[in-house]
């Protein structure tokens, strides 16, 4: 898409960044602009997303780095591949009040990345594209940040030695700089690789956000093409949910995430938890990631799909799914243009208990989270009592309809309450042809009655309601459309009842 046609033009974005950087709560506003789901990135190519994020990171490098922004800067250094973004993030990190030991492995990662794909960058220009000889290799910025780490560099001593002596490539000046750094380090590597270098947990593990999104209407297809509802996937046992997509070109993100999910699967087996915990890997790219692709992607990364471990593509209710998880993802067309690492721990009721975002996550920590969850009473999918509880709305609907009333009112009650309770009925999705037939029968009956009276208001309301329910509601997964459709059908039924009542009264008078 032409830059001028994007929902947010470059000029608009730059103005927003300038405004955020000059006002109060600068960091907060800039951090908001770095959220992947921000509308500023909608329909941008991945390259344009990089240019925009780089612009914000450069701005963060012009002010003290507050704690709120540190995970975003570290994320770029840890998983980024674009020299411009790595250089901007490296500069921004140096604005932190003090270097922490946990920064050292992340800076080492950036060094290793750029040793393979360095480029000239100019952080003063849009996109960082070198315009003249003033541009410097991105590695220069990262080396400056390495020196800024001071004594904390000792925690990555071995990695630096490998970078210097191993089969990696550094330009002469960078190799000399590295050797200079190594000479300045104290001997020994005590504590290296230990928990000294873990980043603070609050930067990696997040407090769950209750989105309020209704996900009951979300439908999935698994790696074998089997249709599944939200409840079938996520209610009854705790679930670990990881997001990915097979066309992700950043090996530090989706590919590594699924590899770690495979590690988690093995850890669960070792702990004897494999039958009590579900694993679900959900693709961001459901139109392209068809079941065979999901199977292939999993198997090539050591993940063994089955009943307890599913790879899912959402076939309905994608927006609700994104809202529920507050997914950090954006798209160009239907393809992802940028996303963050996202792993969630759901309790047995399908509520988010913990989430790991942006930075590398540890499968062992996830196992600890799972152990800390309250034990589910029983799996309602195999427990008749649970089935009764979940089917309560259906029972209420029947009871309400069976209360003494005239036949027309009874039909109206059944129609409305039945539709409202539909998603609560176990396995209702497989019976959709029967429900479709019932809807059509309802429309035919109303149409027949309206034709006799030559008044069509009731039919119009009902057709409109049916279209909303089937179209925007069931096909596109819009909860609000379903409720609006139900309301329209109720109005249609009410109109029919009200029209019938005076005639009935007049008959009695006769």
């Amino acid at each position, binding site marked *: 898409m*032409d830059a001028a046609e994007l929902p947010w033009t470059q000029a608009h974005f730059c103005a927003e960044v300038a405004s955020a950087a000059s006002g109060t709560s600068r960091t907060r506003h800039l951090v908001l602009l770095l959220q992947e789901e921000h509308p500023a990135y909608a329909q941008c*190519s991945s*390259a344009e997303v990089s240019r925009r994020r780089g612009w914000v990171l450069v701005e963060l490098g012009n002010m003290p780095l507050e704690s709120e922004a540190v995970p975003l800067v570290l994320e770029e250094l840890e998983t980024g591949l674009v020299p411009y973004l790595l250089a901007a993030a490296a500069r921004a990190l140096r604005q932190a009040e003090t270097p922490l030991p946990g920064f050292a492995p992340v800076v080492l990662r950036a060094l290793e990345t750029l040793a393979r794909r*360095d480029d*000239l960058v100019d952080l003063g220009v849009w996109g960082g594209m*070198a315009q003249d000889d003033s541009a410097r290799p991105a590695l220069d910025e990262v080396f400056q940040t390495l020196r800024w780490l001071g004594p904390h560099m000792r925690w990555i001593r071995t990695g630096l030695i490998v970078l210097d002596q191993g089969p990696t490539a*550094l330009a002469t000046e960078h190799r000399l700089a590295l050797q200079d750094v190594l000479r300045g380090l104290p001997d020994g590597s005590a504590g290296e690789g230990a928990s000294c270098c873990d980043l603070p947990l609050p930067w990696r593990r997040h407090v769950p956000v209750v989105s309020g999104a209704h996900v009951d209407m979300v439908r999935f297809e698994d790696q074998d093409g089997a249709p599944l509802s939200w409840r079938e996937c996520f209610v009854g046992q705790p679930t670990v949910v990881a997001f990915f997509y097979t066309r992700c070109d950043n090996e530090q993100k989706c590919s590594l995430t699924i590899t770690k999910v495979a590690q988690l699967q093995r850890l669960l087996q070792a702990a004897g938890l494999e039958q009590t915990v579900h694993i679900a890997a959900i693709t961001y790219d459901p139109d*392209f990631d068809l079941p065979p692709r999901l199977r292939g992607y999993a198997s090539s990364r050591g993940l063994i799909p089955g009943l307890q471990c599913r790879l899912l593509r959402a076939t309905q209710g994608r927006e609700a799914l994104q809202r529920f998880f507050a997914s950090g993802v954006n798209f160009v*067309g239907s393809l992802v243009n940028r996303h963050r690492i996202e792993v969630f721990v759901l309790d047995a009721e399908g509520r988010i208990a913990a989430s790991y975002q942006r930075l590398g996550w540890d499968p062992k920590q996830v196992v600890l989270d799972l152990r800390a969850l309250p034990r589910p009473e029983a799996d309602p999918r195999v427990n008749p009592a649970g089935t009764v509880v979940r089917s309560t709305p259906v029972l209420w609907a029947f009871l309400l309809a069976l209360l003494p009333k005239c036949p027309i009112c009874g039909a109206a009650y059944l129609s409305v309450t039945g539709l409202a309770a539909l998603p609560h009925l176990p396995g209702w999705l497989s019976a959709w042809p029967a429900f479709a037939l019932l809807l059509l029968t309802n429309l035919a009956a109303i149409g027949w009655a309206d034709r006799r009276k030559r008044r069509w208001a009731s039919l119009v309301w009902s057709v409109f309601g049916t279209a909303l329910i089937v179209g925007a509601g069931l096909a596109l997964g819009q909860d609000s459309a379903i409720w609006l459709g139900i309301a329209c059908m109720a109005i249609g039924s009410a109109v029919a009842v009200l029209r019938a009542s005076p005639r009935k009264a007049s008959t009695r008078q006769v």
Partner: protein
Amino acid sequence: MPTSKTSRKAGVVRKNGSAKKTTTAATKRTVTKKPSAAADALRGGTSLAKAKPEALIQALLQLGNAVLDDRDAFNGVMRILGDTAADHDLRNKVLSSVQGLTFDPVRFAPHRPAYMKTLRALRTDANSELRQRAFGLLARENDPDTQAMLISGLEDAGKAMLPPEKALQLLSYDPHAGAYAVAHKIEQAPPNPLARREALRVLAADAGSVKLFEQVLGDKSESTEVRQLAASALNHLAPKRMQDTARGMAMDPTESDEIKTLCLTALANFGDPEVLAQDTELQAQVERYQGDADDASSLKLAAANLKQRYT
């Protein structure tokens, strides 16, 4: 000044439990002695303008990968590439040599910034061949600035540095390039048939283009080549829909033999054997193709292949 050096590598072969040390011609490698004149020329010690093109190429070939160990020499190579006054043929040959050097990624990596900078400068070179090659090399690196230039040229022909079909071909290397919107525009109003074909190739990775490919595949007024492209794209994006479409077209008596062959082949290679085994109508049609077509025809062969799949 580079010095001559000799390295030796000894191989150890174990056979019947005994170790045997062997030195073969393959394991004994002698690095070519670097000619000082060639290195001087490449470093710019000898004026590049005065040097004969043949001598420079010879120097580069003699140095081989050793040029990667000599930054001044490599920068000299980059200067030749970027010298618009230099012979075009020479610059093209130099670019070919440098492309060869990239196959040693570890040693090449320190020179990558200079290489990328030179390639970016070549994007506006007067020589169209060099320009096109530079765009191609940068596109393979998913260079963001190059992708932006290519898209900009497709949106506005006045800014185009390459023909639209070439620009689309280069953008197809990266599905994240954001080229689907412009590819749709070109598919709708193509400047030439080649550009439309390349636009379809770009869209072959776009999950939102399934309907487009169904239409193109079903359109008998399209060329066989374009319909084949559409079939391939549809099979990539929506294999089940391709199976349904292929079945319908294979049964259609008004379709050309080429397209029927394509559809039977698609069913034979990607069709669900269980579904095929139950499809008696299709099986009867396959029998007819086997009986009616010439012995040497592709249609008959495709029918036989499909029959093997369900029998």
